[in-house]
């Protein structure tokens, strides 16, 4: 009986604890969905550190955004969709005005939240991942796939391959194999690659790797026998490091592999040691390194022991976490220009995203110079950028080896239109008219 009483007390206490916290006052709340444990923690930790550090920096240095303090809370998703949904539900109502935006940091969670966000009126910021067709803001008003989609990545990777072969016309008859994480994330680039294969005449083949990707021997043995001219890698977490190691084990030349920007960070190459030398990866505009904003973070957070970042400070994914929070808070700032300096609602932040214009001057002022190019989003274009560079691992650090490539919009725009139209029909959405201001 005592146990029963104890159990009911426990349940009661937990119910009490999920009640809305009223004491949070006038904060602008930003939920942080992260994963610091499990098979994807190696990549999840630096990204989360970067994202949180930038928010903490704004609070510590500027007292928030235009004087409105930022409230933020992490929630561990473990890269699992159902846990991500639970986290979203838990955090979406916090703060004075609810969640201002959510970054799901998983393509699977993005898909699930795409269904929920319009009802809750919370924008989704999916920086370089998520549904590629959500670039079309007329159909996806709440998704912001800022800076690049997987289709952008696929197109840029193909262009780099072509450049190495000496031009797009040399692609004809070449074999390009995609080694991908067998999930919505890994499958996203396939339609774009198929379209590009049809246009340029290369032979495209997809090789799936089962989650979590610790066993890739047969994939790489078949690649060794198939001898493709180039391999594209769409991996995440442990899969990246394993792929590079297996490539080394079957002696597939590493400089004939290009990873997506989620396969191009330090934790992906370090475990492979010398075997990773020569491996290439796309950059989501930025690479590793320390810039203006890092000095500020060092001064305000790290030196005071307020940051969790250690070796990952200035690494690729840490920097991406910074940019993610930068773009999100800039959207809030933009919204405040219109609606006043108070906590913004999700709807107002959405307006902020749609009218986001991060100029060269603003990038410089915020200390992001050298990490990103100007970014301008609009109702019809929720992506705002089509450029990426390629970097190469020289055994010690990432070296930028190319100029900016611009994705092939002729092919991709058609795909975006097709797929978003299909979604609109399926969900009975009438696309907005983007020529009218809202």
């Amino acid at each position: 009986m005592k146990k029963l009483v104890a159990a009911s007390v426990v349940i009661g206490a937990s119910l009490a604890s999920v009640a809305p916290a009223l004491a949070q006052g006038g904060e602008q709340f930003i939920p942080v969905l992260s994963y610091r444990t499990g098979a994807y923690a190696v990549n999840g930790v630096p990204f989360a550190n970067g994202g949180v550090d930038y928010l903490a920096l704004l609070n510590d240095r500027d007292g928030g955004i235009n004087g409105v303090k930022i409230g933020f809370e992490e929630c561990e998703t473990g890269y699992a969709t159902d846990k991500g949904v639970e986290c979203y539900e838990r955090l979406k109502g916090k703060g004075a005005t609810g969640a201002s935006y959510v970054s799901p940091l998983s393509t699977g969670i993005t898909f699930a939240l795409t269904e929920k966000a319009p009802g809750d009126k919370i924008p989704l910021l999916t920086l370089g991942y998520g549904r590629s067709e959500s670039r079309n803001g007329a159909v996806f008003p709440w998704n912001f796939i800022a800076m690049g989609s997987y289709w952008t990545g696929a197109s840029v990777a193909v262009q780099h391959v072509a450049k190495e072969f000496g031009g797009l016309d040399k692609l004809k008859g070449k074999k390009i194999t995609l080694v991908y994480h067998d999930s919505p994330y890994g499958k996203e680039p396939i339609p774009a690659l198929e379209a590009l294969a049809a246009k340029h005449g290369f032979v495209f083949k997809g090789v799936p790797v089962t989650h979590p990707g610790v066993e890739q021997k047969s994939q790489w043995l078949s690649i060794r026998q198939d001898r493709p001219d180039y391999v594209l890698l769409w991996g995440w977490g442990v899969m990246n490091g394993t792929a590079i190691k297996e490539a080394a084990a079957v002696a597939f030349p590493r400089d004939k592999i290009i990873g997506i920007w989620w396969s191009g960070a330090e934790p992906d190459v370090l475990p492979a040691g010398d075997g990773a030398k020569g491996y290439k990866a796309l950059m989501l505009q930025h690479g590793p390194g320390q810039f203006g904003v890092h000095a500020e973070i060092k001064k305000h957070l790290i030196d005071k022991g307020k940051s969790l970042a250690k070796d990952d400070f200035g690494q690729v994914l840490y920097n991406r976490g910074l940019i993610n929070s930068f773009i999100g808070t800039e959207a809030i700032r933009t919204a405040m220009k219109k609606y006043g300096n108070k906590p913004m609602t999700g709807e107002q932040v959405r307006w902020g995203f749609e009218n986001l214009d991060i100029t060269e001057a603003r990038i410089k002022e915020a200390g992001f110079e050298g990490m990103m190019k100007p970014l301008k989003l609009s109702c019809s274009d929720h992506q705002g950028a089509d450029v990426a560079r390629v970097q190469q691992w020289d055994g010690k650090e990432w070296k930028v080896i190319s100029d900016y490539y611009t994705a092939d919009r002729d092919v991709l725009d058609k795909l975006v239109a097709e797929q978003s139209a299909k979604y609109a029909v399926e969900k009975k959405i009438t696309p907005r008219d983007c020529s009218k201001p809202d």
Partner: protein
Amino acid sequence: MLYRETGQFKTTYSADMAMLPLRQDRIALGALLVFAFVGIPLLAHFAVWPFGNEYLLRAILLPFLILSLAAIGVNILIGYCGQISLGSGAFMAIGAYMAYKFGTGMPEIGLPALPVLPSILLGGVCSAIVGVLFGIPSLRIKGLYLAVATLAAQFFFDWLFLRVKWFTNYAPSGSVSAPELNVFGWVVDEPIERYLFCLAFVVFFAFVAKNLVRGAIGRQWMAIRDMDIAAELMGIRPFFAKLSAFAVSSFMVGVAGALWAFVYLGAWEPLAFSIDRSLQLLFMVIIGGLGSILGSFLGAGFILMVPIFLNVVPSELGVPLSTETISHLEFIIFGSLICFLLIKEPHGFARLVSLAKEKLRLWPFPY
């Protein structure tokens, strides 16, 4: 004092065999149902604490109901028929994907898009058919061997739904999203509507399950569980008994899978029904109590609440723990709790409840 049967006389056999022979139990269940169907919606409507909070409905009650239904299904197989399965996640996936196919239509065979209710039920039927197929090995192997054999189903279907594009209507990313939940013109959208929708399913199937296990077929299952050779000698056909348990169990698990996908997640991929889900369901029935419908609910509630509790409470109390530490602690506490419960009460929460009832009957005179 209040909870005893003095004065309640059973004058017919049917009264003696009733589902809830005690008047107090009937009143309690009735009150609970009224509260669940009427009370919670009203409280939510008037935003009475804590029911006005969407989080409680959408992220706690909804998964609790759906996973309870799945746990009932698993409990029928494991708890009542004694056939261990580690492939429940796969059967949830079959329910979800087939319900999706029925819900969006199959033009290849001229089948139009069906409404939501028949889609979900047909998803369950498909799951039942596959359950019978994968139940065939149970006629020859049992125990842990069978458990591992059911893992074959788990991994096979994980792969099938990833690879065969027909199941996802050729969606390029392989992620699908549920059609609109429209039941006879009622669009199930608001959290409270979703809650009621699931509640109706769960209550209905819980009653079906309770009556099945009390009836002839349920007694056959239990005979097989307790000693299969003796059961066979008594004239129970293991073939029919085992496969029917697989069918009923897979049907309920499949319906739960369809609800999980349609009502809770909204959009999903096979990873939502991975081996982790199977293990989670197994935990629910074992912690809750094997061979008990009530235990399925208790187990589901417990397994669902512990991680949320561990996650929410420290942050609400202002204990400065990093997310990383919390999730490691969650692993440790969760694992120790399971070991602790197994050691202290191997028969699960359901046994605790019946002990409590027993004590209540005697209270305040302990004899």
